[in-house]
């Protein structure tokens, strides 16, 4: 199966199970290389549908302080592109869900685009999100990724004009990444669900592709609302905040707790269990 096919399958399964998809984000190598591997196992075990794995980068324009700091920690401990790919490979070998890399363009350019694409395939990664490459600059990446079946989902922001949003949605493979609000990643600022609702409806009216909501999804409540409106919730900074200052088993336990909350949130509340939710 190609990367794109694995993503499609993951979304199809969630749909089939009548629930939203959960896509946790981790920064490779944070808080340390071995904990990072533990956290990925945790994520797989919690039933994540896809894992987004960030290649640490020192100048992450699209990220807020939480992920920027995680990247600094990871870099300080020497996690680069290859170590990130090795972690992705580990998830694959462990039978985990498809791993989508999240990386700024500069490390790809230095790696070499073709070589990078080959390395993704070798590590069994599903593709990459490259937040600082707009569709106009996608040409070279697409040329390398498409023949290898690697996904290259695009982001749509609240500032994206409607027509452009549809073009981006059409050009996305795997899924459409709708950014929940203005600004960069970070758990502090609330998603704008009214806007999301409107935007997702517009996309769905034109494009038949799963839609994931990311940036600012920090709680079970957020995730529930996201999967009510769209197909998947992407959670990043909130997970990193959750294990902030810990490592090893302690970090894994904290991530487990939040993932459990998110897992519950993505499942439709069976009408008969309505009272349960209140008493829990």
């Amino acid at each position, binding site marked *: 199966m190609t990367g794109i096919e694995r993503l499609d399958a993951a979304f199809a399964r969630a749909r089939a199970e009548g629930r939203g998809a959960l896509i946790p984000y981790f920064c490779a190598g944070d808080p340390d290389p071995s904990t990072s591997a533990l956290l990925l196992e945790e994520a797989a075990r919690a039933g994540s549908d896809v894992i987004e794995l960030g290649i640490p*980068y*020192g*100048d*992450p*324009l*699209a*990220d*807020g*302080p939480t992920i*920027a*700091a995680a990247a*600094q920690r990871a*870099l300080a401990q020497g996690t*680069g*592109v290859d170590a990130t790919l090795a972690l992705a490979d580990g998830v694959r070998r462990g039978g985990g869900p498809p791993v989508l890399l999240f990386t*700024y*363009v*500069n*490390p*790809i*350019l*230095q*790696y070499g685009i073709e070589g990078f694409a080959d390395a993704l395939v070798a590590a069994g990664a599903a593709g990459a999100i490259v*937040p*600082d*490459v*707009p569709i*106009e*600059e996608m040409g070279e990446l697409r040329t390398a990724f498409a023949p290898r079946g690697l996904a290259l989902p*695009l*982001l*749509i*922001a*609240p*500032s*994206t*004009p409607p027509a*452009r949003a549809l073009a*981006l949605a059409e050009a996305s493979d795997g899924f459409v990444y709708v*950014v929940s609000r*203005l*600004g*960069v990643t970070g758990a502090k*600022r609330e998603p704008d669900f009214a806007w999301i609702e409107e935007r997702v409806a517009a996309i769905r009216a034109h494009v038949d592709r799963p839609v994931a909501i990311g940036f600012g999804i920090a709680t079970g409540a957020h995730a529930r609302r996201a999967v009510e409106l769209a197909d998947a919730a992407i959670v990043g900074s909130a997970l990193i905040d959750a294990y902030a200052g810990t490592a090893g088993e302690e970090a894994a336990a904290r991530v487990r707790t939040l993932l459990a909350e998110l897992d519950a949130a993505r499942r439709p509340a069976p009408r008969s269990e309505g009272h349960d939710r209140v008493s829990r």
Partner: protein
Amino acid sequence: MRKPDGRGYFGEGFGGRFVPEVLYEALAELERGMDAAFADPSFWAEYDAMLRDFVGRPSPILETTRLTGTSEAATLVLKREDLNHTGAHKINNTVGQGLLARRMGKKRIIAETGAGQHGVATATIGAKLGIPVDVFMGELDVERQALNVYVMKLLGARVHPVSGGTRTLKDATNEAFREWAARVEDTFYIIGSVVGAHPYPYMVREFQKVIGVEARAQVLERYGRLPSDVVACVGGGSNAMGIFAGFVGDAGVRLWGVEAAGHGLHSIDTAASLNAGTIGVLHGSRSYVLQTREGQVRDTHSISAGLDYPGVGPEHAFLKDSGRATYVAVDDEEALAMFHACAEREGIVPALESAHALAYASRLARERGPDGLVLVNLSGRGDKDVRQVAAFDER
């Protein structure tokens, strides 16, 4: 000297618009606003009047009398950007972008700053136009440039210390982009050099072009000929692009960009992106970048805060690769010596940035001999550097 292509590229591969989607439309809107303004003579009339009355343009050219220390050297002429309001060329650009921000109905201006010069110039135009200004500045720079921080506050700007990364200009720029992403609709981001995503490199060059246009006319009028060489320091590259722009069409005029070698081009402590860097993407455009083989941006060093930046404007990368301009480097020590020489022999305390250009120009003037006519951009005055140099000299 033309506009870059539709995607913002100079020549084949330098420039572009590598930004998160959230900023894409803001840049497109900016480009539309800029195009409309550039096509409107009343915009330029306003800009020209502001440069004249507020900035104090035209800035003069001055023939040095004692700087090269020999009568065998070429005539060495300074373009006096140090005489501009707020003390450097930076204000030419902030006036232009400030007027554009007002024209586009923006309610708030943000800017990054390193040494504080661009921050002060932005706070200044914000005050004059009555538009609130927020300035992002690395925590380390906030400490090192306490005076400029106070000046910005005096001018009514809010200064936000940035604690991420190296806590310097690069990180302040990251943070300004992030802030812009959070408030694209009402916010105008005034970038301080010919860097960033398209259309910034082009727009900033157009606002700095006045330096070269004036200087060319002044040199022709005074000397009846064009200069043999034009020299400018290159941090992000705006003062250099500004003066080069006047001469790039004159094939006989050699253009020299002078980078900060710091402790030496081959040391780790350098800021010479064109001389010691490789091609990469930083702050939204493709150009030369000081980076690791893994694509991580390197820490840089220069005695001059304004040159202490790991990137460089994409048009310089183009001029380098096309051979139209030559990029050299001057180290901390030589720049510092020239800082002193210019004060003692010409009665002008130059910015440490400009001292890099002066040092190379002075070498060049000696090489060229009496027939040469070397024009150097004195991009700013050194008042801001006096304390640092005093501390340095006391060591």
